[in-house]
């Protein structure tokens, strides 16, 4: 018997009971759609997290002072030494594999232009900040090494500040006042949007760190230093060198903890994405359970169907069907159910993922992997859950089957 005949027989049998065929398929459709949609939502979230961390700068390593501070008061000698200008210079000079470095000092201040004024955060950074933080300028230029050395009064505005003060006009070349001191605006940063916590990242003003320390904070230490490694591979090497250098400079004896923290963006990325990955797997697993239930539904219907169609099987055996023909017929029926359910489920899952991203603004990613997996899995479900009923059908005694009422 040709396989095309089996195919035809199975399709005819399914067509004979469209309601039952449809309902059985529905279990698989919902299961597969759930897997596709859930994995799409999960991997969308993962991609979003990864993107927002990458936004902080590529191959970036951040050194954060642990020196306990409260306001501007250092809390005793035991709490360690803060990051100093000398530390910064030493890092720049002695650590190999750096593409750039910037310290960071921060102050909240009032910024005014004409009659407009806003409260914002002033960041004192180096000339390499745009490179280290992967933050290009939209307009104008960033300050130079010369501006740092001379502590000139120049400023680069974040989008929010630029919009609030200049209301659409070009700020470059204009003079603003920060804490009553005049600064020349030399550039505007590209918009970055809100960060993961929902804080507006564009609400800031960049000035040379030397200017910020002298004129705004009055501090002599940095809260953090960001460096950029030449490549992702060099990050561990850079971290090791900095750790050694700073321990030596801060005279930390063997066995004592560091008085600074080194945060590696690569690690943060891994932690954050692995959290998202866990969520994806969890969502997928829950959806997988519904797929399994769909599969059991197929087995259930096929078993009922074998009993209900006992006479039909008897007739088929009487007119010359072999046991293998019957087995194959029921197996093909189960597979047609599960695979067409799978295909429809993939379409539905895709639609749901799209709807979610349109309706809730979540990023969803329907990966080819999850589509392929759902397809293969639904086919496997057909074989797995179809086999037992099919074998039961094939094992029927023709005389008994013909006599069955």
């Amino acid at each position, binding site marked *: 018997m040709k396989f095309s005949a089996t195919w035809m027989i199975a399709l005819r049998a399914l067509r004979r009971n469209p309601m039952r065929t449809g309902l059985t398929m529905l279990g698989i459709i919902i299961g597969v759609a759930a897997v596709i949609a859930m994995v799409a939502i999960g991997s969308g979230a993962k991609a979003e997290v990864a993107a927002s961390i990458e936004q902080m700068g590529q191959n970036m390593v951040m050194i954060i002072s642990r020196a306990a501070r409260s306001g501007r008061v250092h809390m005793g000698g035991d709490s360690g030494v803060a990051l100093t200008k000398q530390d910064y210079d030493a890092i720049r000079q002695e650590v190999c594999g750096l593409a750039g470095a910037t310290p960071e000092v921060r102050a909240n201040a009032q910024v005014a232009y004409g009659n407009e004024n806003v409260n914002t955060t002033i960041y004192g950074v180096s000339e390499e900040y745009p490179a280290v933080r992967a933050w290009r300028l939209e307009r104008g230029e960033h300050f130079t090494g010369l501006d740092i050395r001379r502590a000139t009064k120049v400023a680069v505005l974040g989008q929010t500040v630029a919009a609030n003060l200049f209301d659409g006009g070009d700020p470059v070349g204009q003079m603003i006042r920060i804490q009553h001191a005049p600064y020349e605006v030399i550039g505007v940063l590209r918009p970055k949007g809100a960060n993961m916590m929902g804080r507006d990242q564009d609400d800031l003003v960049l000035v040379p760190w030397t200017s910020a320390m002298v004129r705004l904070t009055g501090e002599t230490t940095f809260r953090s230093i960001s460096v950029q490694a030449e490549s992702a591979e060099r990050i561990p090497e850079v971290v090791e060198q900095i750790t050694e250098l700073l321990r030596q400079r801060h005279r930390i004896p063997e066995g004592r903890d560091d008085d600074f923290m080194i945060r590696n963006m690569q690690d943060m990325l891994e932690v954050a994405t692995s959290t998202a990955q866990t969520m994806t797997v969890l969502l997928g697993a829950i959806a997988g359970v519904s797929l399994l239930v769909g599969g059991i539904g197929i087995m259930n219907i096929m078993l009922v169907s074998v009993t209900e169609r006992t006479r039909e099987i008897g007739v088929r055996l009487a*007119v010359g069907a072999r046991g293998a023909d019957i087995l194959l017929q029921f197996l093909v029926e189960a597979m047609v159910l599960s695979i067409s359910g799978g295909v429809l489920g993939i379409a539905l899952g895709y639609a749901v993922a799209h709807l979610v991203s349109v309706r809730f603004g979540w990023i969803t990613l329907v990966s080819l992997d999850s589509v392929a997996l759902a397809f293969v899995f639904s086919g496997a479900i057909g074989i797995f859950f179809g086999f037992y009923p099919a074998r039961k059908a094939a094992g029927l005694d023709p005389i008994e089957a013909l006599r069955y009422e």
Partner: protein
Amino acid sequence: MSEQPVIRLEALDKVYQTGEVAVHAVREVSLDVFPGEFVAVMGPSGSGKSTLMNLIGCLDRPTAGRYWLDGEEVGSLSPNELSRVRNQRLGFVFQGFNLLARTSALENVELPLLYSPQGHSRRELRRRSRVALERVGLGPWARHHPSQLSGGQQQRVAIARALINEPALLLADEPTGNLDTRTSIEIMAIIQQLNQKGMTILMVTHEPDIARYCRREVMMRDGRIVSDRPVVDRRDAAADLAARPEPDAEVPA
């Protein structure tokens, strides 16, 4: 007779073992049926006629004895070979018609072709099953489902299905058991006509009236053949039908 018999049974035995009790359904049955014969197997229920029918139909295997169908000994064949024998050499007609529900008459008739090892094109399937339906006078009902056909029409579909692979032997198990008298005679007219064209037919029935349309009558009791004689007062179904008053309109299709 030098001609090769279609059926040759030699001391066929069938014992069913149900727990401790052994039921001897068929005992040492020997029977030759030659091409063109039309045999009625008669007997009360429990006489073993259905078991014999199943053995001849290759649906069951004898416990002892030998069986040649159309010259081939089938007692020793594997299940798959038996399937082929049923498909190629036997045609079955059942009391309960046994058509596939929600399936057109045409597709029902096609069924044995789907399982035949040759493999036919769809066009060939259609053509042959249409011819078979026309032979039993159901050409216009090809697209109807069994539920849309009368009992007589359903049985005619079943006969068309039995004939589609041009079997050597037609086995009919109480083919008129579910039909009223007039429809029974109609079916017998078709079967008689087939026999006249040379088809060998073995029919199980418990109705003496129906057996009189056959040529030979085999009586069974307690698993044995107790009499085997030609039908003396043989009737012609077509003539009976013509002599009967017109029926109330047959159940509409």
